[in-house]
């Protein structure tokens, strides 16, 4: 059929389209459009001016071209850069607003950062030259994750990059990341989001606050447009991935499939709501939105239509953008069924684990949600999924701040949480002490309480249970004793994290003492409190060097990176067990409630076994979280070796601690300190 359009689009011809792939797909002589809408009576393709979004023409999808519930049109004569597009639905005689394509590969109209967007879908053309790009495929046991916010990482002028706050700005920091020794970046949301989507205002200035973090996607196929310098965010993100890969660094995307930016019944109708609200969202018997995400709506993730949409999106990021994995925000939502109850065998979670395109990528669950579900150690994993180990964070913090009854728990965390991941190995556990949610590491050691009054919610938002200790003074101080305590606490956390079995994750800037002034939920801010201050790299040079040395030590000692959980039984030849526990006296650990001492000796009993190492490797990790200094008699090192101190945070110079060992085996472990030693065999 021929339709009437005005201006340069006159003469377009609508031919029958293909129902797959969904979205807008350029063809040899036009563009194919396909969109599913079960409850729509009629549908129009709205073509819009690429410069200002004004409607150029509206073309009705021909009923006879509909395939099942999919409206299709092959628009012959349309070139990808002729127009942006959207869909308009008529239901029960009522026409709705112009909707975004849920499969839009690009979204235009976001404007400058901080401006109210006027979104429209844009036709993408895959024209990127990947050259010889290959996924780094870092062995999981060697992985070190570094979590960062693309804008916040380089937006500060202290970053010194040419394109602050962008994908390109991050790429300029690759040499730093390599120098530090991380091999995987986890990017906080880079799907298109509306940073102005926040109803709160700054309590002192009255200025509207932002949603800087972006945990509220507008489109799950489109990259965040104003993370790009120019007009092609897709190309700039691909360029970033390519450069990270060339540096041996993997890219994991933090993805949000628990809710969308459409909110509850009060929210805007942007896309899914207008197409098929009852399929895409969890609604109760009265048609109201169930809210397991804390954000108003909850995606009906296990509905076949939604499930396929999620899988399609992730395949797109793997195939088109070459990303190496995903971290799923509030992933427990993905295990809920139509009625909101947790499913034993959730189809979406299973489908992602078995998907052939996603094979080899990392699937990491934030295994809880805002509806009370807490599945750490119990998330349905299908042999594939890893988890953010929230219990690692809680146990390490509780131990380090000196809580009683915590030694047994922290010991279990140090060896890869075998209680949680039995049969799956230590690499199922992503260990962390801090992440974007909550205090930064410096703030964890500087504040007893959150200080969120600038978030515009009277300080009610954010986690109350921080398991933190300020060292004696709340917030900034120049008391040298307090500062000394804080410095030790930060190093204790880093040292234990980076010598634990499992996959360690660092929060960007923790390695040089980044603070958010005690704000433990800094999502609404876009300024010095959330921008990484790179001048700290020089001001806290010793802390950066300490972190880097810990990572280097981890690389040098395979016993710390073994994928399996170590057992405590001696080898048949009488050698040391893979892990043994000690106290003030060797072989006599103290697990009593008032003990604050944990000493693990990790020994590689099979150094030539599977190619991980070719030499005997023995490391002692010791921590004293009590208020009293301790002297501990270490076990004898393996034959022909001597103990060498790698680090002792109780020393004035933690990395130059060789003198702390008396008589070759007595370690002085001052109050609130940690030490790591290794058995050195003269060559």
């Amino acid at each position, binding site marked *: 059929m021929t339709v009437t359009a005005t201006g340069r689009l006159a003469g377009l011809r609508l031919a029958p389209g293909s129902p797959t792939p969904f979205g807008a797909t350029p063809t040899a002589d036009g563009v194919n459009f396909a969109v599913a809408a079960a409850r729509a009576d009629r549908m129009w393709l709205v073509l819009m001016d690429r410069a200002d979004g004004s409607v150029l023409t509206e073309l009705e999808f021909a009923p006879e071209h509909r395939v099942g519930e999919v409206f299709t049109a092959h628009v012959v004569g349309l070139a990808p850069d002729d127009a942006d597009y959207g869909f308009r639905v008529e239901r029960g005689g009522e026409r709705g607003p112009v909707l975004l394509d849920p499969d839009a590969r690009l979204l235009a109209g976001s404007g400058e950062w901080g401006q109210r967007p006027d979104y429209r879908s844009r036709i993408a053309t895959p024209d990127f030259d990947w050259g010889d790009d290959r996924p780094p495929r870092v062995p999981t046991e060697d992985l070190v994750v570094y979590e960062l916010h693309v804008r916040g990482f380089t937006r500060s002028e202290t970053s010194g990059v040419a394109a602050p706050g962008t994908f390109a700005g991050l790429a300029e920091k690759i040499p730093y990341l390599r120098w530090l020794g991380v091999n995987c970046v986890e990017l906080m949301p880079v799907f298109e989001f509306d940073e102005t989507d926040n109803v709160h205002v700054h309590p002192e200035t009255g200025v509207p606050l932002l949603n800087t973090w972006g945990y509220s996607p507008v489109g799950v196929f489109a990259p965040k447009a104003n993370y790009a310098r120019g007009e092609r965010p897709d190309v700039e993100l691909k360029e970033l991935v390519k450069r990270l890969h060339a540096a041996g660094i993997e890219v994991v995307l933090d993805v949000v499939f628990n809710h969308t930016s459409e909110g509850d019944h009060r929210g805007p109708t942007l896309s899914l709501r207008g197409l098929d609200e009852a399929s895409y969202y969890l609604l109760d018997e009265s048609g109201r939105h169930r809210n*397991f995400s804390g954000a108003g709506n909850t995606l009906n993730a296990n509905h076949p239509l939604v499930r396929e949409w999620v899988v399609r999106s992730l395949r797109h990021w793997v195939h088109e953008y070459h990303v190496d994995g995903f971290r799923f925000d509030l992933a*427990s939502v993905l295990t809920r069924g139509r009625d909101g109850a947790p499913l034993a065998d959730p189809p979406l979670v299973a489908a992602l684990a078995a998907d052939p395109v996603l094979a080899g990528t990392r699937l990491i669950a934030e295994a809880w949600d805002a509806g*009370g579900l*807490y599945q750490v150690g119990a998330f349905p994993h299908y042999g594939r999924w890893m988890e953010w180990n929230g219990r690692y964070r809680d146990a390490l913090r*509780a131990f380090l701040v000196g809580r009683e009854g915590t030694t047994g*728990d922290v010991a279990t965390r140090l060896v890869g949480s075998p209680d949680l991941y039995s049969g799956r190995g230590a690499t199922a556990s992503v260990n962390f002490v801090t992440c974007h949610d909550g205090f930064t590491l410096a703030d964890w050691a500087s504040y007893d309480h959150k200080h969120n009054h600038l978030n515009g919610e009277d300080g009610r938002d954010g986690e109350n*249970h921080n398991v933190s200790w300020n060292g004696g003074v709340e917030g900034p101080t120049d008391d040298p004793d307090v500062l000394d305590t804080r410095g030790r606490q930060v190093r204790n956390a880093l040292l234990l994290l980076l010598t634990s079995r499992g996959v360690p994750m660092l929060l960007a800037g923790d390695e040089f003492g980044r603070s958010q002034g005690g704000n433990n939920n800094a999502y609404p801010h876009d300024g010095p409190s959330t921008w990484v201050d790179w001048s700290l790299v020089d001001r806290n040079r010793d802390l950066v060097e300490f972190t880097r040395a810990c990572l280097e030590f981890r690389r040098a000692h395979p016993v710390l990176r073994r994928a399996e959980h170590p057992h405590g039984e001696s080898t048949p030849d009488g050698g040391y067990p893979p892990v043994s526990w000690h106290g003030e006296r060797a072989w006599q650990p103290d697990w009593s409630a008032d003990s604050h001492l944990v000493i693990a000796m990790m020994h590689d009993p099979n150094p030539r076994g599977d190619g991980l190492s070719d030499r005997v490797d023995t490391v002692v990790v010791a921590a004293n979280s009590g208020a009293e200094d301790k002297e501990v008699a270490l076990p004898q090192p393996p034959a022909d070796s001597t103990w060498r101190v790698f680090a002792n945070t109780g020393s004035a110079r933690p990395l130059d601690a060789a003198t702390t060992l008396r008589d070759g085996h007595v370690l002085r472990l001052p109050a609130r300190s940690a030490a790591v030693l290794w058995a050195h065999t003269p060559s």
Partner: protein
Amino acid sequence: MSTSVYSGSNGGSTTIHLAGEVDDEALPRLRDLLDELGGRQVRRLVIELREVTGMTPGAVRALVYAQQRLPAGAEVIVVGARASVAAALALGGLGGTATLAS
């Protein structure tokens, strides 16, 4: 009714009594109490909810978390949860692992 949170122990059995609206304001007290339990060898945890009028997801999550921290084989018995509270516990994943008693 104001929120009330306290516990009592008898050998390996510990009972947590909750009353009123267990909301986010009551949460720090509940979590501190549950944290204390983490260091004990609790064989049976009884959660007494007869006087609870409502429970936020945060409170449910705290109970789920506490249940996971119990030693292997320990049992959790939820007593007297009214229908709305029992539904909240089920949505929080506690339904499959705890015994619900009237």
